[in-house]
């Protein structure tokens, strides 16, 4: 029995950060990730009729996004054959004379397990952020993740510094509790 409903007006507020975080670890480019999220919303609008309500709205959007990401890589790969690749053997003076092998990226440098754990943690953080009241979540993100100045946030939301710290305190307490349950 379908239990989930669909509301495109709330997509950006509810899911854009979650989808963005999911995308950025896969495409490693902010602009492309943002475009893919926007395209996902457009595609969601077009196929709204297909939403049966069996899965949650977010799961449904993620399944669209996955296809968008695959399409993006297909597009890149089809362009690759046409592109001209130029490689300079000795590009800079610092590495001149080094063996080519020494310049190849170390495959053990990037820890795949660690990356996966980070991605899961990122999604857990977004889950917890989604449970906060909208204004609290917005201010917490601006202060903690985007690193905005206290003054800039106060001006944006027309609040005093002490108001901001009360909001931050509530958000931090709720986030710590939520992550305690779902992550730590």
């Amino acid at each position, binding site marked *: 029995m379908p239990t989930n409903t669909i509301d*495109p*007006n709330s*997509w*950006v*507020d509810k899911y*854009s*950060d979650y989808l*963005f*975080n999911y995308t*950025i670890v896969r495409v490693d480019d*902010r602009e492309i990730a*943002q475009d893919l*999220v*926007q395209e996902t*919303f*457009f595609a969601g*609008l077009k196929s709204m009729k297909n939403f049966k309500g069996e899965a949650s709205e977010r799961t449904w959007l993620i399944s669209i996004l996955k296809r968008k990401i695959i399409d993006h890589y297909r597009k890149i790969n089809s362009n690759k054959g046409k592109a001209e690749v130029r490689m300079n053997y000795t590009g800079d003076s610092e590495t001149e004379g080094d063996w080519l092998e020494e310049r190849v990226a170390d495959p053990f440098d990037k820890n795949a397990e660690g990356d996966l754990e*980070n991605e899961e*943690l*990122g999604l857990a*953080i*977004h889950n917890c952020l989604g449970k906060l009241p909208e204004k609290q979540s*917005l201010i917490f*993100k*601006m*202060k*903690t*993740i*985007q690193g905005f100045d*206290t003054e800039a946030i106060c001006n*944006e939301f027309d609040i005093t510094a002490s108001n901001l*710290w009360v909001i*931050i*305190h509530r958000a*931090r307490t709720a*986030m*710590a509790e939520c*992550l*305690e349950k779902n*992550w*730590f």
Partner: protein
Amino acid sequence: MKTTSKLFISCEEAKHICDKNQYGEASLKEIITLNIRLIYCKVTRIYSKKNVKLTKVIKTSNVQTINHSDKKSMKQKLHKELSK
């Protein structure tokens, strides 16, 4: 007497300073008073521990979000598409 009252702060004040300290916005004097409170107040110690853990977790997760202004333009584009 005045100095004593400045050195000893309430639990709520300590939590407030602890929050500010997570963003590097607590003054030296505030940090000292917080540390004094941490010596004898278990509640502040627990709060501080959780708070530091949260800061660390968010830093290591490398979590990212879309800017407020970009979100606004995303919303506008979506509304435009919706009204078609």
